[in-house]
């Protein structure tokens, strides 16, 4: 395993130390692991907090800062963080206006964030949790743990972070996050696997001429393993699936702060159609350089244009990765003028910065 690491057990600690050194505007706690704004907590602002397994950098730590996340909780590589981290991070970042957890839909993340939500509630801090599940590659969602949370996470963190900075209260932030999730769809593919340091060998194996369509960000299997295709073909296929995916429905748990218990609720996706304005993310899985992503963006833009769909804003680069995996994902989020305003609002984090 050729990686820029020292001992396997020190990987996470040392990377966080390096990140804190490189970004004095952040502060990193090493026990338990969490990252907050050095100038936080921001009084009177909802603390938008996310977290998940490490290995997806810059997500989430790279999105902590003005106009985006108040804190991030990195777990071990590809392993959910734990409730104690979330609790400590929330307490450190809470500015008196409550805490919103943005949770990618993986069993581990869901269960740990649910536990943290209950613990935070017991501490008397207003809390809500919103699930993100935008990966349309999961088709048999009734018989699985449901769609996975992928690229939409980055975009939702940005927009809800801006809303929190603009004065949205906890319930407004939560409802914006929930709506955004219903307007978000993604799909990924891999050219190569990645190696989790603790395992030392590739998570899966792809032959020299193969690619996997619908891969998850931890190497979860996708829809299909196919021989290599030109980027135009793969991009057109994935874009079409994203645009045509309608009516996905899921039951989510929401925290009822009065009852101090979970309430179930069914939520159905908002369809895409002609005339929509999108925020587009063309994301590298980590090992694919940005030059190749531009070829993806080119075809994505063509397919969208043919269908009368505008790409109003975009991000092209490594934003939610799988270690050094080669491949890409596409995320489309249906925008509105309000959403675009929040998107354009100033943001100052290690990985996303504009307007400041």
């Amino acid at each position, binding site marked *: 395993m050729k990686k820029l690491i020292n001992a396997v057990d020190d990987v996470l600690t040392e990377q966080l130390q390096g990140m804190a050194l490189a970004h004095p505007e952040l502060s990193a706690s090493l026990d338990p692991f969490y990252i907050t704004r050095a100038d936080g907590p921001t009084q009177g602002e909802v603390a938008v907090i996310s977290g998940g397994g490490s290995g997806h950098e810059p997500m989430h730590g790279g999105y902590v800062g003005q106009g985006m996340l108040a804190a991030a909780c990195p777990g071990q590589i590809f392993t959910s963080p734990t409730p104690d981290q979330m609790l400590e991070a929330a307490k450190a970042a809470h500015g008196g206006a409550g805490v919103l957890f943005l949770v990618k839909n*993986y069993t*581990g993340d869901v269960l740990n964030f649910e*536990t943290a939500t209950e613990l935070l509630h017991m501490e008397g801090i207003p809390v809500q949790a919103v699930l993100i599940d935008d990966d349309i590659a999961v088709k*048999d969602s009734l*018989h699985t743990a449901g769609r996975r949370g992928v690229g939409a996470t980055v975009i939702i963190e940005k927009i809800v972070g801006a809303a929190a900075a603009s004065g949205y209260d906890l319930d407004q932030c939560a409802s914006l996050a929930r709506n955004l999730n219903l307007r978000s769809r993604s799909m990924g593919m891999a050219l190569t696997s990645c190696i*989790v340091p603790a*395992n030392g060998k590739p998570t899966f194996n792809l032959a020299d001429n193969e690619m996997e369509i619908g891969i998850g960000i*931890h190497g979860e299997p996708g829809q299909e393993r196919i021989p290599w295709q030109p980027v135009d073909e793969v991009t057109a296929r994935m874009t079409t699936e994203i645009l045509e995916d309608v009516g996905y429905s899921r039951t989510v748990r929401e925290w009822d702060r009065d009852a101090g218990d979970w309430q179930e609720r069914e939520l159905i996706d908002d369809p895409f159609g002609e005339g929509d304005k999108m925020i587009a993310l063309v994301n590298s899985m980590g090992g694919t350089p940005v030059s190749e992503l531009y070829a993806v963006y080119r075809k994505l833009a063509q397919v969208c244009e043919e269908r009368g769909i505008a790409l109003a804003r975009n991000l092209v680069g490594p934003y939610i990765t799988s270690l050094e995996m080669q491949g890409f994902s596409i995320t489309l989020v249906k925008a509105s003028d309000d959403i675009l305003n929040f998107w354009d609002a100033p943001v100052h984090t290690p990985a996303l910065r504009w307007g400041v």
Partner: protein
Amino acid sequence: MADINNDQVLAWLSACAEAMTEHKQELTDLDAATGDADHGNNMARGFDKVQGSLEGHAGKPAGDVLKAVAMTLMSSVGGASGPLYGSYFMKAAAAVQGPDGISTDELADMLRAGVDAVKQRGRAETGEKTMIDALEPAAAAAKQAVSDGKDVLAVLEDIVTAAKAGMEYTVELKATKGRASYQGEKSIGHQDPGATSSYYMLHALYDIMTAEFPS
């Protein structure tokens, strides 16, 4: 009178740590087949922490120890299994009242409360190819053995036998919960890592009790 005394509870938890370390690679390999190849690392990391805390628990009532173990697992295992084993031990702890250890009655209650907590937190039932498929038959077997009036070693033997059968049965099941569910039909034919770690956890209790009272 306690059938499993406080020292034996500590020995059990220590044996769990050893078992998870011994079977770390096996659990991770099982997880590699259907999930993300970290279950062995997660469990070994978690029980290692537990082992490190045991010295401080010497002499404490079993219920208190199990509650502390719940918190340790919750904060160190991570992944799906962390909060699930955390809930298991948390609710199991509540079933143990005595100052000296655990009676067979309490043992049966513990196992029931534990698996019920996992079901609730995980929103899962038996047959979904999870740790529940080992924990549920183990709880049922404990209840039956105790009402049959068996002694602690016999109860534990039934528990281990039932957990083993449940664990092995997961090979045939299709996963519908957790990460393995993304494999769909492809999950069939592989044994569930969580059911396997549950089996080792229960087996560790049987081991330390038979070591103390060799038949």
